[in-house]
């Protein structure tokens, strides 16, 4: 049985439905990441779970208990806010201990709990400081300490890393991940950063305009996106969307892309029977289009296609190449040591094992 369950949850603000019939389940110790563009309702959903915002309808169940009408402090849920929300007038020690103090925990016991948490987060030397005397990363740790010390049933994180610089963000991301491993906490985490979502989650929920687009493991979301929105939102650079048409050559159905200048096999991810002449969109991530040296030797279906190079972006580890064929541009990922320059003709290898096919009208992935 799932530990945290959100059932048919809806939230209306005025006539605007900001959350539409949300259903999510999470097992104990799971790490759920809510991801989506800004304004998709992910923070609203988090606030609803925290009890900071009333629901219009639906249920939130934690450990078999419906917590809809419980006051935030009675839900046994702790939250780390985007701005950290550290109490400016209190020291780090008082900040971390505040929740325990409000629950009437004895002073000695409180000090013990604060020390333990401070040790885990390596902020023991900061306990006497005030939030204004801390750096961004230290504030982040204190905010996490304040949640940890309560040992709640569920942790909520609201874009906790968005105020940190790039290097610190990667560090803290790893730390949150190891914290999750070590404490076995149940976590709901909101972010708009798809890399954070991929690296941290055991389960990802992609939201758009208040509706769930897809729920799945990071691999499922990445490799088998449910629709064009998820495919486009997750992954950077974004997935290539190539317009195609089903053709039949000597009895075998294939997809013709680039206005008929190339014909490729129908990817194995599609089992539906695609009739001849049907329009489709072939989705292939940049790493599915490579130079001939980077081809996956185990790939079943590949296609070699020549195209004109438009732009070359070396990232150091690999090089992203934008190329054009028949007016359609696509992005490929090639080895960093391949010499390639704009305006050249280059042979790209399409790995169709990694491809997915979408219906252009509904935007849904064809199974």
């Amino acid at each position, binding site marked *: 049985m799932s530990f945290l369950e959100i059932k048919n949850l809806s939230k209306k603000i005025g006539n605007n439905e900001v959350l539409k019939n949300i259903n999510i389940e999470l097992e104990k110790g799971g790490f759920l990441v809510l991801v989506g563009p800004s304004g998709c309702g992910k923070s609203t959903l988090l606030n609803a779970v925290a009890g900071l915002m009333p629901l219009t309808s639906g249920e939130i169940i934690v450990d078999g208990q419906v917590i809809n009408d419980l006051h935030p402090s009675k839900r046994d849920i702790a939250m780390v*806010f985007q701005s950290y929300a550290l*109490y*400016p007038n209190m020291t780090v020690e008082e900040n971390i201990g505040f929740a325990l103090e409000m629950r009437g925990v004895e002073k000695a016991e409180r000090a013990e709990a604060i020390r333990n948490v401070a040790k885990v987060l390596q902020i023991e030397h900061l306990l006497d400081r005030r939030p204004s005397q801390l750096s961004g990363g230290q504030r982040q740790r204190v905010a996490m300490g304040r949640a940890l010390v309560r040992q709640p049933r569920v942790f909520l994180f609201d874009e906790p890393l968005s105020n940190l610089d790039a290097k610190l963000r990667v560090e803290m991301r790893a730390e949150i991940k190891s914290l999750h491993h070590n404490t076995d906490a149940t976590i709901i985490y909101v972010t708009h950063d798809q890399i954070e979502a991929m690296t941290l989650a055991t389960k990802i929920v992609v939201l758009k305009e208040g509706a769930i687009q897809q729920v799945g493991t990071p691999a499922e979301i990445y490799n088998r996106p449910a629709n064009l929105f998820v495919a486009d939102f997750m992954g950077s650079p974004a997935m290539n969307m190539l317009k195609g048409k089903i053709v039949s050559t000597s009895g075998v159905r294939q997809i013709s892309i680039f206005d008929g200048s190339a014909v490729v096999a129908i990817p194995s991810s599609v089992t539906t029977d695609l009739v001849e002449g049907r329009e489709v969109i072939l989705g292939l991530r940049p790493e599915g289009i490579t130079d001939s040296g980077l081809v996956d030797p185990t790939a079943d279906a590949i296609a070699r296609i020549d195209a004109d190079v438009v732009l070359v972006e070396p990232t150091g580890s690999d090089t992203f190449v934008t190329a054009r064929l028949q007016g359609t541009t696509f992005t490929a990922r090639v080895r960093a040591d391949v010499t390639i320059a704009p305006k050249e003709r280059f042979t790209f290898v399409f790995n169709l094992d990694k491809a997915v096919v979408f219906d252009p009208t509904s935007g849904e992935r064809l199974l």
Partner: protein
Amino acid sequence: MSAPSDTVSAGSARTTRLVIYTLLLVLAAIYLLPLYVMLTTSFKSLAEIRGGDMLALPRDPSLDSWFKAWGEACIGVTCEGIKGYFWNSIKMVVPAVLISTVLGALNGYVLTKWRFPGHKLVFGLMLFACFIPFQAVLIPMARVLGIFGMANTTSGLVFVHVVYGLGFTTLFFRNYYEAFPDELIKAAMMDGAGFFKIFWRILLPSSGPIIVVTVIYQFTNIWNDFLFGVSFSSGAESPMTVALNNLVSSSTGVKEYNVDMAAAVFAALPTLFVYIVAGRYFVRGLMAGAVKG
């Protein structure tokens, strides 16, 4: 940033500066002149005042008129000086400032962090209270005080000043708390703090600057108020400002300018004190907010 120094020579910059400072000094002197006359006159004897040289320093400075103003001067028919009225004012101003500040803070807290349907209307009405001229409410207020049995009492004056201060104190605190992050309130709620705990432990400790501003504003207004004092109190219950007026206007033969001046300085001392003591915290509070934290 070196462009200005290319076009303005060091010499002409110094001249400009000199002109500015001279002008400021002259204006400051004019501004301070009444205070100077008050102070010097209060130390002079009546004979010396009659000599006519208002700006001269006292030849033979004495504190006689100060003692007389405090303990012996006649106000109306009693000749016990202004000390009783001074304490009346203190007894009025301290509770009135405290109560209106605390209520203003609570109002600001509710209007920004515990919003209820119609909170904008309520705030609008409170704001409206700031614009009602005091004269317009004298008679209804006298009636209300009569019904409450608080006519001609210090507590009656406290009540009036609290009611009329609320609009301003609420405005101050609401605008201050408007900028206070909501996430802190949410965090405290999740930590298990209730309505008053959040106010007392989170909000108030961060309100130093606005408390100082409100206290200075309320103290000065209430201490210096004459209209409510003269309308809602009489005789021995009057506040300092009313007594000062009575002292100056009730003459028993000779007009004692030195005593009048000393009494006026007494009346001005508390507000001066509040500015000197609290003003420092006021500036400090502003500076603390100005530095990125």
